[in-house]
């Protein structure tokens, strides 16, 4: 595509930024030419989001030079960045929750026609201009964010893990649209932890490690290994789990769901989860998997069906009841799970004090032992442990898992635990999940990334349109088979 020797659109060199003791960026640089899609890669906490925020004026750098179309630029605020043609979609949704769609557009002077065009183009239907942002699901918000950015016709589009929370079909639309943007001569900075997307979309990759740009590569077949090497500083790759002998589940299931219904989304979900097994959940966005996890974790009461734990029927009125029954829940949105301004230790130890009988003096040594064990096990980067919000996204996610590791796990409910997590961290999480299962825990594992299912799970249930439509043996399921199942195509495939 666009020749790299052309005048660059965006040229950043030597960008540095510290947050107190944490040096998020030390020497970051990046070049974007017209028509080029640059992948910005790096492990969790490498500084990608920080870089994007600096380029778009949401943060002020401590040092560095930014040239826009060859001219030195001081981007003081997001508004100024927008005027210079730099339009971001940040990692966190940036629409105003209490305004409706129309008002959000007026606020940013976004042309309405163009916006609607892009919403349509990206394949979102049924969004009305008077919908409150707060009422919309996360995936829709991400798309609206993107449509808003596209509508302002940016010169450089900066997309920070836009696809992390998107179902597969929407990801495809996004990739297509972004590609067209580049073909029209715009520049794109694209952040994702998924190599497949990067291979499909990007022209080059700039790799950050520990806040420093360590390399810029052209994307060509086989570049993954080189990228990973640069990102991690050593050669690493994702290995498939060796397909072991298929598990034989006998005895009483740890968790049995029978005909669970949750009006209006879920009509019939039944499954059994046995001790020692990792049961995957395969589903496209919004098929009712959120609701099922809400029921299992005690947040929502089902409108029908029964739930048995170790053969005993259970009714959860509060997450505490589920926890008492041994069910530990790790939500997809870590913002819901973390005490942002408290320490790593307090976050992990939180369940230790939950019940009234634990309101008394803390058991310091006992607590420290178990917390330290969890931190070590998950290799949480504790440089900024005084406040969890200073950790990177990946490390924050580890803390949410570490909490239950320290507390002791019988049944672990993982909802998309690897959303927006880098390869290295993922590589730590799969074996951990396996290990927990081998030690006798039962794990229910939903992931939005289908290729993870064979890596971590023994079996997988497929939820489509609020029902369990299939159970597949995950260990040797191909991605294609999983995909077909997720789209509810199993019956036909069986017929053909």
């Amino acid at each position: 595509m666009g020749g790299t020797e052309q005048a660059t659109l965006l040229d950043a060199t030597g960008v540095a930024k510290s947050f107190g003791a944490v040096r998020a960026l030390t020497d970051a640089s990046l070049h974007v030419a017209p028509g080029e899609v640059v992948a910005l890669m790096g492990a969790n906490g490498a500084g990608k989001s920080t870089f994007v925020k600096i380029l778009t004026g949401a943060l002020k750098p401590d040092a560095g030079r930014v040239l826009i179309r060859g001219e030195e630029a001081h981007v003081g605020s997001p508004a100024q960045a927008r005027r210079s043609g730099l339009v971001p979609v940040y990692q966190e949704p940036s629409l105003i929750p209490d305004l409706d769609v129309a008002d959000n557009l007026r606020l940013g002077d976004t042309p309405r026609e163009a916006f609607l065009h892009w919403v349509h183009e990206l394949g979102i239907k049924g969004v009305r201009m008077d919908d409150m942002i707060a009422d919309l699901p996360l995936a829709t918000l991400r798309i609206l964010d993107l449509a808003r950015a596209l509508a302002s016709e940016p010169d450089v589009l900066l997309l920070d893990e836009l696809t992390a929370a998107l179902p597969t079909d929407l990801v495809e639309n996004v990739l297509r649209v972004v590609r067209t943007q580049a073909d029209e001569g715009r520049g794109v900075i694209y952040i994702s932890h998924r190599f497949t997307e990067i291979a499909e979309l990007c022209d080059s990759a700039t790799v950050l490690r520990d806040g420093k740009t360590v390399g810029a590569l052209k994307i060509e077949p086989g570049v993954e290994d080189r990228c990973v090497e640069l990102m991690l500083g050593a050669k690493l790759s994702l290995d498939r789990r060796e397909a072991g002998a298929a598990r034989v589940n006998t005895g009483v299931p740890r968790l049995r769901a029978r005909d669970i219904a949750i009006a209006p989304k879920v009509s019939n979900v039944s499954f059994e989860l046995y001790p020692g097994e990792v049961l995957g959940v395969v589903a496209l966005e919004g098929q009712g998997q959120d609701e099922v996890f809400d029921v299992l974790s005690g947040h929502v009461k089902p409108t029908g069906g029964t739930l048995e734990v170790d053969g005993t029927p259970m009714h959860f009125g509060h997450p505490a009841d589920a926890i008492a029954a041994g069910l530990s829940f790790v939500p997809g949105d870590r913002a819901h799970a973390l005490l942002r301004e408290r320490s790593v230790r307090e976050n992990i130890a939180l369940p230790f004090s939950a019940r009234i009988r634990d309101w008394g003096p803390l058991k310091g040594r006992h607590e420290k032992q178990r917390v330290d064990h969890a931190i070590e096990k998950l290799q949480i980067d504790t440089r900024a442990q005084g406040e969890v919000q200073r950790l990177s996204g990946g490390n924050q996610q580890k803390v949410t898992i570490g909490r239950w590791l320290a507390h002791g796990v019988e049944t672990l409910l993982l909802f998309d635990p690897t959303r927006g997590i880098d390869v290295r961290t993922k590589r730590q999480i799969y074996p951990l999940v396996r290990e927990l299962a081998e030690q006798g825990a039962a794990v229910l594992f939903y992931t939005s990334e289908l290729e993870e299912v064979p890596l971590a799970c023994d079996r997988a249930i497929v939820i489509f349109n609020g029902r369990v439509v299939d159970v597949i043996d995950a260990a040797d399921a191909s991605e294609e088979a999983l995909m077909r199942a997720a789209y509810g195509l199993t019956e036909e495939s069986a017929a053909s």
Partner: protein
Amino acid sequence: MNRRLQKHAWTLGLVLLLAVLMIVTKLIQPSFGATGLESLARAALPFAFATVAMAIVVIVGGIDLSIASMMAVCGVTAAVLMQSMGVVPAVAITLVVGLVMGAINGTLIVVTRVPDIVVTLAMLFVWEGVALLILTSPGGTVAPGLRSLISGAMIPGVPNALIFMAAAVALVWLPIRRSKLGLSIYAVGSDELAAFRSGINVAWTKITAYGLAGLLSAMGGLSLIMLTGIGEPVPGPYLLASVAAVVLGGVVLGGGRGGLLGPIIAVFVLRIIRTILTLAAVDPNVTTIVEGVIMVAVVMLGAVLTYRGARG
């Protein structure tokens, strides 16, 4: 349509409540009529301005504890100025003083990064002191023309005080509400970070919102002296009343949600409850209890309703 209705359900409920209370008043005191309505509207004036001022800062995500003190400053300023100059310049200067005081509050919040509740708690004392420096004891004069503005009813059944209030609030708020500034105020209150990232100048929006609150406090101060004819340097009981009315009126503490109509109706509800209790010759100490209970009960009801709403 349904959505719109849902959005304004709380306000509609308040209107209904007000209507019921009016009927109760009429039942207790059959002679309650135009003059009763007029004095109700007049009594509501300072509360309404204080409440509207409070509502704007609550919508932007803050709170202003200094509103009653700013009203006192503006009251004494106008009363003193009117001794030496015409009504129009005196009123104009007073409005500017209010605007500036509010903007100072906002600027301090933005610049010092001290939480709004703390800054305005401190400014509560500062403005109270300033009022006492301007006038050590009640005094000053108010032009009779100004006072007659809020008495009587040009349109039968609609008290002038009500028209005055509606006109003043509409003049300030309507042009802003639908403008980008108005949206920015809601946006900043709803999610400051998202607002900043959407390209809104958060600092400026806050300062403007606090400035508007100051301006409306100035109107409140003016309405006070229009009622009494003198300037009083000691702040009246408008702070807690305005917080209560704002919440009763459906504005969410924390920002981003609610309008100005609900709080104004809430002011009338609170005022008419006092009228009813006086007419019914309820023991005044019990009146305090009743007011407290009503405030808590209505807000509890609101909490329960929204809780249900969020579930259903």
